[in-house]
């Protein structure tokens, strides 16, 4: 009993301060925007006439588009308290499936359908095993990571499958008002994802399931069904990503999407989403993707080697998580 404590009514100054700071996620978004601005300045200085061009910007965004779409799905999964290690493997499997001779026989519509269907079904299998099989997300998606890529190798015989329909490849080269279609797809997926997360009951319940599953259950949420749906959503995002990547490379291959799971998880984490679930921001995740892509872009423009680039990425992840811990402590003080 806490009779010895001072009155603990939420006093007005604390609430005002909380409102001014906004949520933890938004505060850190500001940090990521500052990092992006700094990177832009570095780019303008180190690669004058190369970095700050319309062409390079569109190129950068196109590079970010596939991993960005995957990261949207990953954000939902992590906020709901899960993890999806199988996203890269799902992309590989979907790209291979939609580029088999049989699939290609149905034309562009059939190919897109095949990619989306395969990815959605794999996501549903992940979700069903986790939600109804009561297995740990890490284990289930790790198993899927191995077996989905294995299946992709089996189907393709480890050969790249060339896309024969020129209309399909055009997905990667079409432009809408001068902006590459792939970038437009990323923008649409991100906006739809943001609305779903922040403006719908589905989004609110995703936070609830990840933040306190028992409270969600007692409130009357079907936690298992919701968990299943979140992994299905991740699968759908992978399907979209598979179509984009297949068009971009004009091939379906079992080697597509290598290490995408790590890039997506890293982007979500530095975007301020708690790996333990319950708190997170989709805007942060997208900013995270942009930070990583910009670093890669800068290194390429400056002819620097990938190992150094990877060291820089690792350092950023550690710095972001340290920041997250500090934010949590500050949060605790206001209790």
């Amino acid at each position: 009993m806490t009779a010895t404590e001072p009155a603990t009514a939420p006093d007005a100054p604390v609430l005002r301060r909380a409102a001014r700071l906004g949520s933890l996620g938004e505060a850190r978004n500001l940090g990521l925007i500052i990092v992006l601005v700094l990177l832009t300045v570095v780019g303008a200085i180190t690669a004058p006439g190369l970095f700050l061009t319309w062409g390079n910007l569109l190129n950068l965004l196109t590079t970010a588009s596939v991993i960005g779409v995957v990261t949207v799905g990953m954000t939902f999964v992590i906020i709901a308290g899960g993890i999806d290690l199988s996203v890269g493997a799902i992309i590989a499997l979907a790209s291979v499936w939609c580029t088999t001779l049989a699939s290609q026989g149905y034309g562009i519509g059939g190919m897109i359908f095949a990619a989306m269907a395969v990815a959605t079904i794999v996501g549903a299998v992940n979700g069903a095993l986790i939600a109804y099989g009561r297995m740990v997300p890490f284990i289930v998606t790790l198993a899927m990571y191995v077996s989905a890529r294995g299946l992709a190798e089996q189907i393709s015989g480890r050969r790249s499958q060339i896309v024969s329909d020129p209309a399909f490849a055009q997905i990667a080269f079409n432009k809408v008002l001068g902006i590459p279609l792939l970038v437009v797809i990323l923008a649409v997926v991100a906006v739809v994802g943001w609305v779903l997360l922040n403006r719908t009951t589905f989004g609110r319940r995703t936070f609830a399931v990840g933040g306190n599953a028992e409270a969600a259950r007692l409130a009357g949420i079907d936690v298992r069904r919701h968990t299943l749906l979140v992994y299905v959503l991740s699968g759908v995002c992978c399907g979209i990503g598979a179509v984009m990547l297949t068009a971009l490379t004009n091939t379906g291959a079992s080697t597509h999407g290598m290490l995408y799971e790590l890039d997506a998880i890293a982007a979500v984490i530095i975007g301020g989403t708690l790996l333990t679930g319950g708190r997170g921001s989709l805007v942060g995740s997208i900013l995270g993707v942009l930070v990583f892509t910009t670093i890669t872009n800068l290194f390429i423009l400056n002819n620097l080697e990938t190992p150094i680039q990877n060291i820089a990425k690792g350092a950023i992840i550690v710095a972001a998580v340290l920041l997250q811990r500090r934010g949590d402590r500050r949060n605790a003080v206001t209790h």
Partner: protein
Amino acid sequence: MTETMLQMTGIVKRFPGVVALAGVDLDVRPGEVHCLLGQNGAGKSTLIKVLAGAHRPDEGRILWEGSQVGFGSPVAAVRHGIATIYQELDLVDGLSVADNIFLAHEYASAGFVRGRETREVTVALLERLGHPDISPGTEVGRLSAAGKQIVSMARALSHDARLIVMDEPSAVLAHDEVENLFRVIRGLTAAGTAIVYISHRLEEIREIGDRVTVLKDGRTVAAGLDARTTPTTEIVKLMTGRTIEYAFPPRQSEPADGDPLLEVSGLTRAGEFVDVSFAVRPGEIVGLAGLVGSGRSEILETVYGARKAGAGTVSMGGRRVRPGSVPAAVRAGMGLAPEERKAQALFMLASIAENVVASTLPRFARAGFVDRRAALEAAAAQTAALELRPKDPRRPVRTLSGGNQQKVVVGRWLLKGCKVLLLDEPTRGVDIGARSELYALIRDLADSGVGVVVVSSEVPEVLGLADRVLVVADGRIVHEAPAAELDEHQVLDLVMEGSAVITKEDVV
């Protein structure tokens, strides 16, 4: 107002190994505050979980507004108009106040949350609860415990609940907040809402309650008592009149003397306990009696260094122990058998032997390699001395009964050669037959010169086992006396009435 709103008859709920409810009756009328009283373990929490649809009863009938119902799920209970405010607040920290209140019953069109409407209704609910200062957009994780409770109540109101169950709502509230809570409750009951109110504080029940039902050992022992006029002594008698007697070993004939082993002086932790001082001599068993939440476990953990004291000192054999350091406390000769045995003390998948030698491993190690045979032999000797069953120390600890698991924890500290043993709820989850054996073991330890501190929420256990008893209420030691000079009623009076109204003269 004589018609019955809720009538529960002969409710039985069994869990593996225990009968939590052995036949509970409860009737609640519209517009009343019905108080549920009982000691820890009497079945109050299980009963409200049955009422909330979180547990399904094995036997019994629930009549809700005249028709028989079975609440198969929390949703079903809420749909009937029964809302529960749990002690561990069931809120999502990462969501806003408004989102928490309307979680799973959002104002929404086609899946889109109608934000403005949600905010307006939230503001109205919070105003009704006397807290217009809480903003609907604030993240719940940023609120104080009292603020969270207001949100829980707003949630109950948002369901248009006609029966609200409150599980120790005042436990997290400061004094003026309790006044506000009572004002809200009076407003609700005036509108015909019934409240089932659980509290350990008798003075609150006198102030807000209409009728009282008393539970003991999973049964209703008295129903429909008048909350204002029933004498305290009668209520306490109903709560304690036990049917089970334990065999306690005889006490030391002479009071312990000699220099104290453990001396605690002025120990304070903000919000948990204030100015706690006591001493333990060799061969002495000191008992701390108090309710859950009174601060007794926190005191023990602070003495052990698992929590850092804000003020005060802990000394072993006259030398100060570095505060906030478990290794320092262990080096000084303390051992703790914590409250949550499985979570805090045992490696459930490991063997008995591995658990027993966990604190003494370096003794069996050469250049970092553990001499497994020597460790096993030492563990076997220890478990044999404790008459542990099964005898084979290679068996996994998870296969042991509660009493034998407790022996493993005690054995670990005996092997270490500890001088002061701190026992937090040593018989929780230990069946009745094994308890007497554990009591005898603790007494034997004391006779061999170990100082023992026992914390228990079961008053008879403290009184039967300890030589000297400290009564803890609201984070203070309100009374200290030889166990032989106290009885259960006095101790319960002390812990329930709180520290303010009692002086030593009143109880002796």
